[in-house]
């Protein structure tokens, strides 16, 4: 479902990604761990078609990027650092707008269902401008799920969420994976995503440093890596 080989990305003189390889199968829930600046967000943006790779091969949901980007975009949901919403519009209007862009069938019912899922039914008519960071994050998740994507890319989705909402988010992501969606989460918080994912890919300095299967996720990471993650975690 996601296939990346020998991917590199250069910003001016800086190499953000160098020869990254990654494969995530259908229905798999995978974490991409790494300290700040490891290249997680850059990789997610490339997979989402928001950035162009400098070199390498990228395939998402059977579509080769950047050539078949429009086809790939129809099948992926993305939650980034910013909620990608319009703050002058209400939650309802935001979802309705994106439902039109994605041609979501029976959009009104789907919007109801998602607002219920993320617990924003009561605030649906309020402008997003007044929402807390956590509420924005929940609405961003609803936006990403609107068109029932086959691939979900999430960049630090637990940030700004309280414990209860973060647990609810985990449940939503598990349900998505059970339904066959491929879920890739970028995080620097192993404690948070360790119990959720089936394996983790470690990124360091723009390279894939290691892959940890589920059985090893509870254990301590290599010392240098653990230190870097803890520093990112603040």
């Amino acid at each position, binding site marked *: 479902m996601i296939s990346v080989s020998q991917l590199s990305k250069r910003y001016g003189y800086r190499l953000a990604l160098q020869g990254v390889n990654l494969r995530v199968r259908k229905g798999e829930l995978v974490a991409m761990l790494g300290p700040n600046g490891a290249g997680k967000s850059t990789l997610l943006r490339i997979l*989402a*078609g*928001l*950035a*162009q790779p400098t070199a390498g091969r990228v395939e998402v949901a059977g579509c080769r990027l950047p050539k078949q980007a*429009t*086809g790939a*975009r*129809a099948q*992926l949901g*993305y939650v*980034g*650092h*910013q*909620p*990608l*919403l*319009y*703050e*002058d*519009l209400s939650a309802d*209007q935001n979802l309705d*707008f*994106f439902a*039109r*862009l*994605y*041609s979501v069938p029976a959009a009104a019912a789907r919007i109801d269902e998602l607002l219920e899922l993320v617990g924003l039914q009561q605030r649906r008519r309020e*402008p997003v401008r007044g929402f807390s960071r956590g509420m924005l994050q929940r609405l961003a998740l609803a*936006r990403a799920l609107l068109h029932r994507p086959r691939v979900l890319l999430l960049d630090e989705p637990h940030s700004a969420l309280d414990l209860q909402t973060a647990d609810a988010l985990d449940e939503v992501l598990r349900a998505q994976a059970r339904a066959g969606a491929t879920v890739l989460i970028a995080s620097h918080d192993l404690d948070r995503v360790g119990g959720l994912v089936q394996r983790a890919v470690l990124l360091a300095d723009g390279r894939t440093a290691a892959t940890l299967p589920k059985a090893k996720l509870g254990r301590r990471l290599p010392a240098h890596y653990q230190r870097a993650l803890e520093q990112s975690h603040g």
Partner: protein
Amino acid sequence: MASYFSAVLAIMRKDLAAEWRSRQMVTAMLVFVVLVIFIFAFTLDIDTLTRRQIAAGVLWSTFAFAGTLGLNRTLATEGERGSLDGLLLAPVERSAIYFGKTLANLFFMLVVEIFTLPLYAVFYNMSLAQPGLWLVLLLGSWCFCSVGTLLAAMAAQARSRELLLPVLLFPMVLPVLVASVRASSAFVNGLGLDYALSSLNILVVYGLIMPALGFMFFDFIVEE
């Protein structure tokens, strides 16, 4: 995948709904135009005939500066709030974003023109019952918005976009402004269609070429 035209309409409707809620952009444009009308009206110590002769120039320079205010906001706010990424993620042709934004900008500009033209009519002794004048306003505004939206998308990526947009825009819209002023002046001063025809031709050609360029290049402009 949304059809091309429904995506264009959805983007335009979204911009109109957001503006309806905030009323920031159109209000700023209206206030600017009204202030300029009053400043010119009270500072130009000229007779009625001369006043009517310069009306078209004052009209278009005011609309051009007010339009720049709107254009500066149109894609910059999308960039600031990260919502442009939301648009770029959608499975629609990127040029649909361009046309949606251009139509929304055209709408805002026309609203400002419709609300402020009566004031011009009073201060510059103009008659508004001239279909030719309205045609020039529509064509000139379309040309201005089609090139302006394209350049606003370019400038939106820059840090000093408020400065960059006028610097890029005004040399590009100079033919539009000259043609619009000439054609409007012809109608305002009762010179008729014959006098305005060559200017109208320029506007029609420009109004076809610029959207075609937007259709072809918007994708590259909003690409990282």
